[in-house]
């Protein structure tokens, strides 16, 4: 039985259902210094769906992924994946970080980056065999980057780099995919390629969670959305969650009516 914040302002904010979901977050509070980046956040991500995490800058979107993966330590709250504490099932989770966190001059080729995704399977001593290389190449084919396998990672464009990191996540063979702004600053062809791969993952029963910044494409790419601004504003199917009221509540007055009309069609 997990302990978490069960009620806030007299509303029930947490219940025990959904804890066997691919990802269940309950009462999560993360602070940098004393200012909370996330406060008492609840979220449930269902199997076989593509979910978007939406919110303004500084709403805690990236922090949510980092807390889920144990990269930042929460003040309170629990994170379960497939009914177990997330630390126990990290091998079933693949993560695609924001591109900016990487050293682009690192002496490594595209194929080596993808092989990095098999680290758990290779362990410390096992040699990289042809079979591993073939599977890494297959992952590159899925993102359309097979012709770049021998390139040094810094010689690629931003979109191509992003696809290589998606290929590394694919090489992990995970069930739950967490992506942090994969479409930020990439070309249209890359966005198309990434969406196609994510949809194929969803169709094979995998769970995909994407921190997303482009409100205009939410309803075309995703089935479900989580709107956050430090706390949860709304969660559910895109069609019911994306309303003028929830968007105004998430973004404050920052969203002009013209934009709203465009997003909501």
């Amino acid at each position: 039985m997990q302990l978490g914040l069960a009620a806030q302002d007299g509303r029930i904010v947490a219940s025990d259902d959904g804890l066997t979901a691919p990802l269940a977050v309950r009462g999560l509070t993360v602070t940098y210094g004393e200012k909370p980046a996330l406060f008492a956040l609840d979220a449930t991500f269902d199997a076989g769906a593509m979910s978007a995490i939406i919110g303004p800058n500084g709403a805690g979107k990236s922090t949510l992924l980092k807390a889920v993966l144990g990269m930042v330590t929460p003040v309170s709250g629990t994170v379960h994946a497939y009914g177990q504490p997330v630390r126990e099932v990290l091998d079933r989770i693949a993560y695609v970080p924001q591109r900016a966190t990487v050293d682009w001059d690192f002496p490594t080729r595209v194929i080596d980056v993808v092989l990095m995704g098999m680290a758990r399977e290779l362990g410390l001593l096992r040699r990289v065999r042809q079979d591993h290389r073939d599977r890494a190449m297959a992952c590159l084919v899925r993102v359309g980057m097979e012709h770049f396998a021998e390139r040094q990672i810094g010689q690629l464009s931003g979109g191509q780099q992003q696809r290589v990191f998606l290929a590394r996540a694919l090489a992990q063979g995970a069930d739950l995919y967490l992506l942090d702004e994969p479409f930020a600053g990439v070309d249209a062809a890359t966005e198309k390629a990434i969406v196609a791969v994510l949809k194929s993952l969803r169709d094979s029963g995998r769970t995909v969670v994407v921190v997303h910044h482009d409100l205009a494409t939410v309803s075309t790419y995703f089935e479900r959305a989580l709107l956050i601004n430090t706390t949860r504003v709304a969660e559910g199917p895109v069609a019911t969650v994306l309303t003028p009221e929830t968007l105004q509540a998430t973004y404050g007055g920052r969203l002009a009516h013209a934009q709203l009309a465009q997003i909501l069609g």
Partner: protein
Amino acid sequence: MAGASPTRNWRRSSAEMWGLGYNAALVATGAGLLGAAAGITGTFLVLRKRALVSDAIAHATLPGIALAFLVMVAFGGEGRSLAGLLFGSALSAWLGLLCVGWLTHATRLSEDAAIGAVLSVFFGFGILLLTVIQSLNVGRQAGLETFLLGSTAGMLYSDALTIAVGGGLATLAALVLRRPMLTAAFDPGYAVATGLDVRRVDLAMMGLIMAVTVIGIKIVGLVLIVAMVILPPVTARFWSNRVDRVVLIAGVMGGLTGLLGALISASAPNLPTGPIIVLTGSAGFFVSLMIAPRRGVLAALLARHRYQRRVHLRQGLLALAHGHPVYERFTLRLLSRAGLANPDGTATDKGRAAAARALLDESRWQILRADPAQEIAASHYDGLRPIETVLTPDQIAQIDTRLAPRPLT
């Protein structure tokens, strides 16, 4: 030295096969092994962008050496046991390392400030202890200060053996831990997300550097040992974009540096071994910096120059094709030297043909780049590359159907 045992005789004769004195052969072997171990372990440190931590580690060994000497003297020894001194240096280096880690994590100090603080405090304390020891006049203290800049005068077979075994173990451990260390260096956020304990990986890496430092301070000295850890990897980086090769080259480079440096210093009296080894390594670094293909300074200058000429030629040809005058004198000179333009800026027959080809190529590229389905081919566009090197003839024919029809003249 009387009563040489059979083993000792064998060692002597094998050393003399090298045509060196016994001591010189020992030092060269030891320095070579140390250089290889330092180069391999140092590569991971440099790739993690924490090269200066090795300087803090090295300077933090000094109080440990002095305290170990005092402890051994207090228990009635001479205080000169190398194993004892190295054990002491390892303890205080580890303490210094923990201090750097604590200052970085628990306070707002950045790592470079923490390194500076730890380095100077430990080194200052060590110098103070050495001064106290001199005034005490106990034990056989002569030679303690050689740990500062290194000394090879009285090197023993057991010293070389210590380096061989210690360096071998450190290298082996580095190769076993290579995957977690490289993942943490390349993409620490991802490393944590896959369940890797990056802080423990870092600590293990520092432990390896510490081991190499401790076994190397006898030869190179604690002030200069940092060069043996940093120079081979930065030199190796010039020669390869593949991490496995960078590690290998750094190992070979470090080994050669140690060996050559020791041999050079043995070739004349009174040449200090540590500094000569470091200067040998620096020579390798400067040569690589200059002549390395692609990443070297000369290669970069040459590539830039060549590229500039190609850009000028291409722009000149496109200007001729459009019938524009060529204003830039450098462009005009290139064109006329290639027989494409007359000195007055008009195109020669050869120039007109080349200009038409350049224009056709450019128009084909524009069509290719406007087609989102051809993104990979289009990514090769750099304004210079002929489209024939990217597309097959039938693909080009396909594009040509979409070229604007030429007006008949």
